[in-house]
């Protein structure tokens, strides 16, 4: 069973600060996705990283996939109150049979205080 460890579990910082969330596994994934979930809603995909060492940027968010495709990080620059939410990493593997589910980490609850 593939497991994803996310850290920190909770993070509360002031507006304007930078932060990094980590997602680690002992398994190699075909791809790794980052989701953001608002209260009362379903997760929404932010980014998918596929290639080892890949870096993707989404405005103030920078996502990196580890060279060995076992870990990933999410870095937020100059955090804003609107960044508050639950951030989930999810690993996927394409077994070739189709319809593979995602293995989720336990999430990082992020609070950005004005």
């Amino acid at each position: 069973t593939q497991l994803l460890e996310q850290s920190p579990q909770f993070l509360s910082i002031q507006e304007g600060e930078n932060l990094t969330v980590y997602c680690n596994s002992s398994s190699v994934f075909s791809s790794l996705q980052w989701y953001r979930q608002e209260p009362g809603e379903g997760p929404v995909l932010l980014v998918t990283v596929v290639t080892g060492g890949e870096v993707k940027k989404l405005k103030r968010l920078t996502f990196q996939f580890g060279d060995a495709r076992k870990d990933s990080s999410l870095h937020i620059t100059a955090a804003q109150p609107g960044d508050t939410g639950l951030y989930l990493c999810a690993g996927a593997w394409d077994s070739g049979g189709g319809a593979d589910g995602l293995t989720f980490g336990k999430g990082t609850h992020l609070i950005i205080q004005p």
Partner: protein
Amino acid sequence: DTAVSQTPKYLVTQMGNDKSIKCEQNLGHDTMYWYKQDSKKFLKIMFSYNNKELIINETVPNRFSPKSPDKAHLNLHINSLELGDSAVYFCASSFLGLPSTDTQYFGPGTRLTVL
């Protein structure tokens, strides 16, 4: 024009009852999923369906049975509800079922409370 919809949004019921949660997607996707999110926000895959065929069946109790009348719908039926079934259940869909290339779109969730 909601992409993935679920009904009901909230479901409160007594232990031992049987209930169903419905899911519909209007994205034309081939694959649909059911996830369970516990009180600590841990999200875990339960089932997936690809073209009406069950592909994944994780180690969930057989009291849970997914039913797909067509590829746009994947309903979740739960028999003999237990207290531990209380959670938020999310339906999701994707085009081909390959997460490396697909995006999974999640519904808004159904909060099930078993008393």
